[in-house]
């Protein structure tokens, strides 16, 4: 009898774990990031709104542990995709193939492929063109963007990555992007373009 209880209990627990699938969670009120952090100051004078207009705001520029769940969550990835268009990332990076800015769907990462490295690229900017967005994008949206950018080269969960575009499809959908193993994933190895 007792054994049966244990079996059923284990089965129910397994079911609970299975159904709490991260893909489907929709979190409209993300927690503000926990303190665990590096403070980011803009690395470039090229700032959204002009030099000096990007403030360093402690609550928005603290890097917490990147929310891993974002890379397995359909809502976060599709929000990242929407923000990528809304904040005009495609103005320079196109839809992943690169234009004025480097491509994002390949295996080359000048400043690293880790979510926190992408985070600091967006918030603090990078030399030669990447503007600093500072406190102008809430931290959780930067994480969503970082997750989406990683999905372009197939580095996130395929079952959660977006499957279609709202505009004309120019690249394969993110959920069928070929995984491009990052060639340089460390911020110290700066790769130079030929």
């Amino acid at each position, binding site marked *: 009898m007792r054994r049966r209880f244990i079996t059923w209990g284990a089965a129910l627990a397994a079911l609970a774990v299975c159904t709490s699938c991260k893909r489907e969670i*929709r979190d*409209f*009120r993300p927690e*503000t990031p926990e303190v665990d952090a590096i403070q980011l100051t803009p690395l470039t004078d090229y700032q*959204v*709104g*002009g030099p000096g*207009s*990007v*403030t360093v*705001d402690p*609550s928005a520029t603290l890097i917490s542990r990147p929310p891993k769940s974002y890379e397995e969550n359909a809502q976060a990835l599709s929000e990242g995709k929407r923000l990528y268009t*809304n*904040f005009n990332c495609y103005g320079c990076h196109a839809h992943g193939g690169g234009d004025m800015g480097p491509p994002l769907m390949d295996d080359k990462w000048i400043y690293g492929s880790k979510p926190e490295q992408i985070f600091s690229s967006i918030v603090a900017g990078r030399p030669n063109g990447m503007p600093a967005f*500072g*406190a*102008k*994008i*809430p931290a*959780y*949206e930067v994480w969503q963007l970082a997750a989406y950018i990683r999905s372009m080269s197939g580095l996130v969960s395929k079952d959660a990555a977006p499957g279609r575009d*709202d505009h004309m499809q120019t690249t394969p959908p993110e959920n069928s992007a070929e995984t491009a193993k990052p060639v340089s994933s460390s911020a110290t190895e700066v790769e130079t373009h030929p």
Partner: protein
Amino acid sequence: MSLYVTWGVFAAIPAQTGTWCSGSQSALDPAGPQSEQLAGLWWEFFDTSAIVYCLVIVIIVAALAFRMRRTLLPPEVHPAAFWENIRAWIVGGLTLATTVILFFLLIGDHVAGRAVRNPSTENAVKIRATGHQWWWDFRYEDPTPSNILTTANEIHIPIGRPVDFELQSADVIHSFWIPNLQGKRDMIPAKTAHSVMQADRAGTYWGQCAEFCGYQHAKMRFKLVAEPEADFQKWLAAARQPAVEPTTESQKKGKAVFLSRTCVMCHTIQGTTAGGMVGPELTHLASRSKIAAGSLPNTRGYLAGWIADPQQIKPGVRMPPNALPPDQLQALLDYLESLK
């Protein structure tokens, strides 16, 4: 018993129409020629159906009573063939009556449909309306580019002049509906549709998204003010002006907060560097009576709540929560309230 209830409801309708059929968001309170047609059509259908329904009930009651009497008559008086004949006439007559009624409705529908579909757009005010999740973007077209006016969630139109809405969608399918003025028209992504309407009676009317478009579909409304031409021109001239410059220290600080924080990424304030087109434009925010696409009154308290935590008010809305320090929030509110 249920029959009595039905008759009771019917008896109550004429008494209630006064309250049911009026208001600033009612298709039965027409304010222009197009909605007049639609309301007329609605009443034509309603009256016809009501008369047919009452007749059917009367006939059923009569048939029950008649059937009882018939069983008392001996078959010699009226042979079976006589009843057959009567039945054929009744069925034939009712089929004909049904056809005539349906044609009556069809013709009414056709006439109203034609009247509503292609109204004259001569001398029309041209407004491009774009549906977003979950707000409305309006652009008053003008041959002179500097006169083009962009606004959101609240529009003014002149009375006695047609308004030609060019309908678009920025994301999913929405439907454009101002019940007092015109029928619904879908806004399909990547397609353009037109909806032409005219208001003959000055007043405030509400528009509503009429196609489920996501979490906050119900809180996707806009306000339409129909006013005499002179008032409209006055409003238009004022609305074309860039935003007022902040005067007090607090307003200046508020403007700096607006331009250095998340606000500037999505919203436009004409006359500043803020030019985002992702969210509603805010140049004359303080002149509007509602915020959040018609969901909240535009008061300082609601505005503060909306800025601090919009997800509490419209869960799923595209605007992020903004945990501003109190002094920055107050300054921002001072600035936004000055944008008359």
